[in-house]
């Protein structure tokens, strides 16, 4: 029983980690909290529903389509909501936050009109395949989600630490002006960051659709808020912290549902944020800097 709950928790946690990575990338490079990330994630999930349930296409096509659509959404987000604010004189640091809240409300209601308010089932061919190991049941979907998340995280880590574009991204995150002086095309890097973060949100959307077999326009909000909780838990702009934070939140939520009151599941994330912000504002894995908390 406990083992099954742990497996559920890890599955959920790895999805949370991918969502949180999208937040972390954007925050690391731009210093902006992208409130629209949850809604981009939700769009990815809906693309998955349309591709698999409505059109009956295989799941890999759904992944591809979701990546393309969310990448385009990410580009538009950067182009219309973030770029106009950048480098403008006298814009407060709250302006991009408010602007992305605008995008999130817009996207949520657009999808409300496009897809309808209710729950959409997410059909896939292998939803019911499961293995029995001793007394534990493991679903193929859970393994798939876990493997995809791990692969994605490894690819991202490799890309960030080894490739030229990844190094340019880290340089930009470190200091935008210096990176730009040293010949990094920061404008391009910023677009790339937002696009990659959004595409990861799209992948996470399909994974959630597969895990819970239901997709609705409101899921973006709750997932977005949880992603925020995770990056605060793990330390802002900290890639490893986001992964660990996602797993911690996924596990604690599953355990609360299994052994406590399921109604309070959505509150855990926020109680955790508030406590963390009070006790350790730089996050569990963050380093204390002079700018901490800013």
């Amino acid at each position, binding site marked *: 029983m406990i083992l099954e709950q742990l497996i559920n928790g890890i599955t959920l946690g790895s999805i949370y980690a991918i969502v949180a990575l999208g937040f972390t990338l954007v925050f690391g490079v731009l210093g902006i909290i992208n409130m629209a990330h949850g809604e981009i994630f939700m769009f990815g999930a809906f693309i998955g529903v349309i591709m698999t349930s409505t059109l009956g296409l295989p799941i890999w096509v759904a992944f591809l389509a979701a990546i393309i659509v969310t990448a385009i959404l990410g580009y538009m987000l950067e182009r219309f*909501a973030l770029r*106009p*604010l950048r480098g403008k004189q006298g*814009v407060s640091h709250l302006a991009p936050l408010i602007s992305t809240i*605008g995008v999130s409300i*817009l996207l949520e209601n657009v999808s409300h009109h496009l897809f309808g308010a209710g729950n959409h089932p997410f059909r896939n061919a292998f939803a019911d395949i499961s293995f029995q190991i001793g007394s534990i049941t493991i679903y193929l979907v859970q393994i798939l989600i876990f493997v995809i998340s791990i692969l994605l995280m490894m690819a991202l880590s490799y890309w960030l630490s080894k490739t030229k574009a990844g190094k340019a991204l880290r340089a930009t995150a470190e200091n935008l002006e210096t990176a730009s002086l040293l010949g990094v095309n920061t404008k391009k890097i910023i677009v790339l960051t937002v696009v990659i973060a959004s595409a990861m949100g799209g992948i996470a959307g399909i994974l959630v659709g597969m895990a819970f077999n239901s997709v609705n326009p409101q899921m973006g909000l709750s997932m977005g808020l949880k992603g925020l909780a995770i990056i605060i838990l793990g330390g802002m702009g900290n890639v490893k912290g986001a992964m660990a934070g996602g797993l911690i939140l996924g596990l604690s939520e599953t355990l609360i549902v299994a052994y406590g009151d399921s109604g*309070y599941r959505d509150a855990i994330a*926020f109680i955790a944020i508030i406590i963390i912000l009070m006790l350790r504002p730089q996050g569990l894995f963050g380093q204390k800097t002079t700018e901490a*908390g800013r």
Partner: protein
Amino acid sequence: MLGEFINPYYLQVASFILINIILGLSIYVTLSSGQLSLGSAGFMGIGAYTSALLTINFDLPIIAGIIAGALVAGILGILIGIPSLRLQGVYLAIATLGFGEVIRVFFVNWESVTKGAVGISNIPHIGREIFRMLRDSGFDPGVLGLKNNQFVFLTVFILLLIVNIFVVWFLIRQNKSRVGRAFASIKMDEKAAEAMGINITYYKVLAFTQGAVLSGFAGALYAHVMAYISPADFAYHRAVEILIFAVFGGSEVIWGAIFGAAFMTTMPEVLRFISEYRYMIYGLVLIVMMAFRPQGIIDAQVLDWFKKRKLPKRRVDHGSSNQKHL
């Protein structure tokens, strides 16, 4: 007669505008000290539930319920505000957003008291209670040429108008006082303000608490005007809606929040076809405003322009008062 001009529907919309103005002002107060709080929907919910539960379960008079609602919200504001001081900018916004969500989840789950997602109905209505009191003492609205329900809505409107005038007057007075100038200097530059000897801890908590009290107060009024509340009334969307009032109208001057609340409440009522696309438009408004006019429609320059237009007519009595707050 008076009765022919009074339409309960218009009065109802006007009452919502007045409640929303208080909410818009609650964001304005906190922003005037440079803090962005997204917890106003949560504080509003606290005020509404406190007042509704006290009046229903303990038969408290409405006015006591409303004051209690505002006070409880204020106390929570202090409790949240003091530790939140360590957080600046976006962190405060997220912590308060998280606070709002926690409050909503508690309203949904604490079913024995709050009746969960169904919400609380049969909350005593301000207008009807006053009407009943007056009727018991032998008053008949027919004297004024009003029907009963016209009179009920008219009392609500007048009451809210008085409350609004008082709140706006208080905030204008405060802006010209030591407190208001401390808020403004903290908003400009916190470190410089501290160096000038301003106790930023005190003033930031003060601003945050004032915002919480105003939200709780507006929430309590909302409960007794609607007579029905549910946790969904105080969700994230409400927080964004309240934020829009200040962002659209103008977050730097009091009149901005007032204009924003009035305009944003009237628009979906006047243009019915808009109300279906209401939140989409809200989203677009936020994006466009941030890109082109981050300070909102009404800012100090617009106000100056209005004053200049009026000035030639009444130069004598306005000249000296203008000098004071320049």
